[in-house]
C-alpha cells in the first residue's frame, strides 16, 4: 500500500518506461551503446536481437541490477537511474531472469508468498503471523493457480523440473501485481505445450499493464507484441509494429534472415 503511494501520478505519465541515450560498458567493452526508447503504458513490447546483443544487459539496467554508465531511465515519469532493485520494485517494476533465479529451499508456495509481501505493505513486520495474512495467502494461491503449480505447492523449489522452475520464475515476477513487467526469455527450455500455456498466461496477466519481453520464438513475438524493438550489438536498429518490422530491410539483413537460416 505504501509502495503505491510513492508512484507519482501514473495517469499523468504518458510513458511507463523511458530510456534516454543509455550506455553500459563492462570495463573498456561497451555493451549498450546509446539506447533510447519510450514504452507506453499498457503496451506489450518485445525485444529481439541476436545472442549477445545486450538484451539481458538492458534489462539489468532497467531493473537496477546494474547502474548505467551514462544516460537516464524514467519509470512512470520518475527519474530512477541508479536506484537499487528494491526501490524500483516498490515503484511497480518486476522482472524475471533468463537464468532461473528462485529460492531453492523454500516451497513453491513460499517462493510466491515472499514475492507478494512487500507489495501488500507488510514490509519488515515481525508482529504479523504470515500464515494469518489472508490477502497475502490468497494472492499467492491465485498466482499458483495462474502458473498451474497448485499441485506442487509444498515442494521445495530446488527439486522442481526445469520447466516448472521456469513457470515459478514467471510466478515470482507477476505475483506482486507490478504495473511494469520485464520477462527475459520466459519460455526458454519449455516444451511446446508448456510454452503455449506460458504465453496465454503472459497475455492474460499483461492485460492493462506494461510488458517488455525478450523472446527468441518469433511466433510468440509477432503474436503477442504491440511493438517490437530490434537490438543489435548494443543499439536499437528499429522499433515498430510487427508488420513493419517484418518488412524492414535492415532488420532482415541484421537478424531475421540469420535467425531463420
Amino acid at each position: 500500500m505504501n509502495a503505491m503511494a510513492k508512484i507519482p501520478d501514473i495517469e499523468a505519465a504518458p510513458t511507463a518506461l523511458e530510456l534516454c541515450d543509455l550506455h553500459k560498458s563492462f570495463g573498456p567493452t561497451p555493451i549498450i551503446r546509446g539506447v533510447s526508447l519510450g514504452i507506453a503504458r499498457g503496451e506489450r513490447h518485445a525485444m529481439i536481437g541476436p545472442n549477445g546483443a545486450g538484451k539481458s544487459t538492458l534489462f539489468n539496467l532497467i531493473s537496477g541490477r546494474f547502474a548505467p554508465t551514462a544516460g537516464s531511465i524514467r519509470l512512470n515519469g520518475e527519474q530512477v537511474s541508479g536506484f537499487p532493485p528494491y526501490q524500483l520494485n516498490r515503484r511497480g517494476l518486476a522482472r524475471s531472469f533468463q537464468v532461473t533465479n528462485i529460492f531453492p529451499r523454500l516451497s513453491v508456495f513460499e517462493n510466491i508468498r515472499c514475492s507478494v509481501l512487500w507489495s501488500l505493505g507488510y514490509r519488515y513486520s515481525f508482529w504479523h503471523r504470515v500464515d494469518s495474512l489472508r490477502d497475502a495467502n490468497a494472492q499467492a494461491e491465485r498466482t499458483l493457480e495462474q502458473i498451474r503449480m497448485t499441485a506442487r505447492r509444498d515442494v521445495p523449489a530446488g527439486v522442481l523440473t526445469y520447466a516448472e522452475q521456469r513457470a515459478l520464475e514467471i510466478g515470482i515476477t507477476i505475483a506482486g501485481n507490478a504495473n511494469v513487467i520485464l520477462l527475459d526469455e520466459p519460455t526458454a527450455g519449455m516444451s511446446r505445450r508448456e510454452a503455449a500455456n506460458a504465453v496465454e498466461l503472459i497475455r492474460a496477466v499483461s492485460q492493462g499493464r506494461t510488458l517488455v519481453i525478450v523472446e527468441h520464438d518469433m511466433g510468440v513475438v509477432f503474436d503477442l507484441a504491440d511493438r517490437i524493438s530490434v537490438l543489435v550489438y548494443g543499439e536499437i536498429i528499429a522499433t515498430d509494429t510487427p508488420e513493419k518490422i517484418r518488412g524492414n530491410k535492415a532488420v532482415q539483413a541484421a537478424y531475421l534472415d540469420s535467425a531463420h537460416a
Partner: protein
Amino acid sequence: MKSVAAAPEMTSAEPTPSWMTRSRTWVGAAAILLVLPHIPGLNADFGRSLLSQMGIAAVFALSFNLLLGQTGLLSFGHAVYFGLGGYATVHLMRAINHGLPVPVPLAPLAGAATGLLFGVLFGSVTTRRAGTIFALITLGIGELVYATTFMLPSYFGGEEGITASRTRGPALLGFDLGPQLQVYYVVALWAIIAAALMYAFTRTPVGRMCNAVRDNPERVEFVGYNTQRVRFVAFSAAGLFAGLAGGLHAINYEIVAADSVSALRSGTVLLMTYIGGVGRFIGPVIGAAVLTWLQASLSGYTSAWLFYLGLFFMAIIVFAPAGLAGLILMHRPIIRMPAFWRVLRAYAIAFAPALVMTIGAIVIIEMSYRLSTQPELGTRMRLFWTDIDAATPWPWLAAVVMIVSGFVVFRKTWPIVAQAWQQATTEASVAAGAR
C-alpha cells in the same frame, strides 16, 4: 558459506503444522521441562545444574541459528551479545543486592535489552555485508569487545569478572533462587518463552524473508526487500535472545567474566548449533544439550576431551551435515513402517563392530595423550576396567587389531543397513501412494 547453505535437509518447504499440533508440541515441551529435574539421575544439584546450563546454551544456540540457519549468516562473534547481556544482568543483580526492588528472576530482561542494543549498534555495521566479509567483521568486533573487558575493569571486573548474589533480593511468588531447582525453573521458563518467540519470529513476514535472503539474496531485492535491512533485523533479534541467555548465565553462576564474550564461547555456540543441525528449528536445542552434557561428563573422565569433541564435530560435518536433528528426523517417514524394526536391528548389528573400532581408537588416543602430555604420571594406566602399560607394545597392538577388524566388519554391515532402509522407504512410499 556456500557449504553451509548447501546442507541438504535445510528446507522451509514443510507446510506449517496445524494449530493443534503446534500447541500440543509446546505444551508437551513445557511438561517435559517441568518433570525433567525430578527424574532419577537428574534430581540432585549436579543434574539440575546441568539442566540449567543446557537451557541457557539452548537459548544461546537458538539465537545463533536465527543468523546461521535462518538467514545464512555465519558469525564468529555471537558471544559478544551473550556476554554483554550477562554483564548488564549481573550489574542489575548487584543493584538488587543493594536494595533495588526488582525480583531477580526478571533481571535477564536487562540482558535481553542490552543484547538488543548492541545487536542494533554492531548489526548496523556488520550486516552491510554478507558471506566472508560479514564473518570477518564479527570476528573483529568479538576481539574488540574482549579486549575492552580488560580496558574497563570498573565495569567488566577484569580477569575475575563481576559477582553478585541471586538470593539477596525480593522474592517473586516465593522464588528466592536459593536451591538449584528454583534456578532451573527460572531458566526453563525463560527458555521456553524465548524458544516460542524465536519460533514465532521465523513465521513472520520478516522471518520468511530471512529464509529468502539465505536462499537467494539477489532475488530478494527484486521483490521489494532490502537484503541489508532483512539481515539487520535478524541480527538485532539474535542479539536480543543471546543477551537473554547471558542474563540467565549471570543468575545461574552469580558471576560474569571476560570468558563470556570470548571467541571460545563464540566457537562453542557454533559447534553446538552445527552439531544439532542448522536446518531444523529444534537442532540447536539438541546440539546445546548434547554438547553441554559431553563437556560436563567427558571432562571428568579424560584430559583429551577437547580432542574427542573435535573428532565428534568433524564426524558430524562429514557424515551428517544436517546434524543430529537431521539424523533423527530422517527416520520420520519410516517410523510407522513394519521394516522400521529391521532398520533398528541393522543399526544394532552395525553398532557392535563400530563400538570395537571406537574402543580401539580411544585406547590409542588415551595412551598417546598420557605419553605426550602427562609423562610424570607414568605409563601404567587403567582403561575400560583393564590395567595396561603403554610402555609395552601389547596394548598398542591390541588397539590396532580392534580398529582394523572393527572397521572391516563394520564395512560388511553397511549393506544390511542399506537394505533395511531400502525396504522401509519402499514401504513408506507405497503407504504414501495408498493415501
